[in-house]
């Protein structure tokens, strides 16, 4: 084949052509990345170190060092509380969600009557429990009344009795409290674990059935084959799900609301940016720690 010479360019190899087209295909994203991500990110860092005043000629940005950070951490009345609350919430919820969704994925992977219906019900939270609906739901009075009626009756006494039994039988008190908390949060957990169940379920279905067959022939029980086969095989996905759960919690916590309110209701852009950066750093630290600890234990087949 003759090399095609277009517009006086040098004839290119196939690899070069591919690289060029690759740049072309990435270009839209790259533009967006620059204009809607990187530059705003840098600006946001700048805002967090400055005091911003709007006047007749536009905005004046004045460098004031760490004053915004100091204000957020020491002066602002609700920031510390909200930050610790949302982080504690995250730390409590993430393991619960991951364990719960792994358990449910194993359950939904088994064959039983009505599995298709059960699956579609369990993925329903993916579409329902996000954004504005979840926010409004918490303010629904009718529901609150009904919940109170429900918990006033059978539920709460049941869990307290259960807790007593567990404490008496020698289970560590902290564990009992954690479990009780989990029961109280059950709706929150169920409604946040839709995507995680999906990911685990998909992971379980890629495990080759030969492994299970072999272990069954060797006499392994279902329990053993879960811990020896299913668990190691999905362990990379545990990492994925932990990260996803942490990221997912951005969209529905009080921290986001507080940052937004500081920015758009009281127009304190500097303070709001500083809060956002502290929050971001806190989450990064959590992400790094959890990634480090989990990835040490993750089993990769290769």
């Amino acid at each position, binding site marked *: 084949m003759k090399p095609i010479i277009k517009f006086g360019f040098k004839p290119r190899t196939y690899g070069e052509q591919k690289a060029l087209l690759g740049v072309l295909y990435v270009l839209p994203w790259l533009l967006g990345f620059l204009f809607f991500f990187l530059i705003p990110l840098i600006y946001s860092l700048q805002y967090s170190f400055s005091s911003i005043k709007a006047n007749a000629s536009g905005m004046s940005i004045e460098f004031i060092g760490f004053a915004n950070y100091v204000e957020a951490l020491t002066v602002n009345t609700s920031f510390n509380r909200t930050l610790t609350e949302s982080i504690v919430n995250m730390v409590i919820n993430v393991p619960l969600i991951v364990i719960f969704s792994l358990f449910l994925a194993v359950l939904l992977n088994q064959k039983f009557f009505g599995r298709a219906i059960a699956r579609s019900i369990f993925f329903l939270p993916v579409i329902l429990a996000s954004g504005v609906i979840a926010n409004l739901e918490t*303010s629904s*009075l009718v529901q609150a009344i009904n919940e109170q009626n429900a918990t006033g009756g059978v539920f709460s006494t049941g869990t307290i009795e259960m807790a007593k039994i567990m404490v008496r039988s020698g289970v560590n008190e902290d564990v009992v409290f954690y479990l009780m908390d989990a029961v109280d949060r059950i709706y929150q957990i169920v409604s946040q674990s839709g995507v995680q169940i999906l990911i685990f379920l998909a992971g379980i279905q890629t495990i080759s059935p030969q492994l299970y067959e072999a272990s069954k022939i060797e006499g392994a029980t279902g329990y053993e084959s879960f811990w020896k086969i299913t668990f190691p095989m999905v362990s990379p996905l545990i990492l994925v799900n932990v990260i996803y759960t942490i990221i997912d919690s951005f969209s529905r916590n009080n921290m986001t609301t507080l940052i937004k309110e500081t920015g758009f209701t009281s127009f304190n852009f500097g303070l709001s940016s500083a809060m956002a950066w502290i*929050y971001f750093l806190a989450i990064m630290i959590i992400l790094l720690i959890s990634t480090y600890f989990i990835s040490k234990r993750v089993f990769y087949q290769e």
Partner: protein
Amino acid sequence: MIMAQLLSLENWKRWLWTIVRLVLIVGLSFVILYPIIQKISTSIKDKADLYSPIVVFIPEHYTLDNFKQAIAIMDYWETLFNTFALTGTTTILTAVSCALAGYAFARLKFKGSNLLFAGVILTILVPPTTILIPIYMNLKDFTLMGLIPLLTGKSVNLLDSYWPFILTSITANSLKAGLYIFIFRQFFRGIPKEVEEAAYIDGAGVGSTFLRIMLPNAVPSIITVLLFSFVWQWNDSFFTTTYLTSSKVMSTQLSSLPYNLSILLEGGATTNKDPFFMSMVQDTGILLAILPLVILYLFVQRYFVESIERTGIVG
């Protein structure tokens, strides 16, 4: 004899597990469905039933007043149309731009493409709150690197229009777009190289290979991205309430529903601002907002499972 005993023990274990599983699944399904059942029952209740102690789920007096009220306040049909237009546009644009970027990151390697992919990961990890304010300022005085002021003399205010959504989705930086790029990249990496090479040998260029060979193979991942992007955009209140202040889309209408409702009740003939009644209408509004999604979900729910299995997030 011993054999039979063993068999029966096994049988017992199996039955026990089946029952435990049934209880668990039914119980948890109830936990998930409870709010929806609750809302349906609230929305068809008459005001009189609200305080009646004998009414729990099935009301004594049926009424559609709540629906009428909520539809009137939310301007439901117009809102529905707007939301569909907005969500549909962003979904399709996002899918296109993310598929292009994902394919390039998977197969069309160039110098620095791995570094750029690290950028994609960064966009997933940084909370949108952190960059919200600069983006907001940027959109308020949109200059496109000084080009627009050059042509028209002043910058344009893109807020309160659909442009922020269109621009971010064309450039694959809309809500959770990093995740979609990641999904596409993983999927395209999973398609055997031989398929692509065969197409090249038969004379297809890179573009036509992508369009006619790779994309038809990537249908599961496309469906996944379309579904998630549609649902998340529909429910999104974070960006929508920031960018759109007066436009009528579902999430802004929903978040201003309590406020509009109290105005209506104060000004109207009925001046009793019963908080329970307000909450009742609000519940109906939520039900109306999620109704299109639920209907959609009934049709596409089987793709949810099937597609995730094949998207290669897990691989």
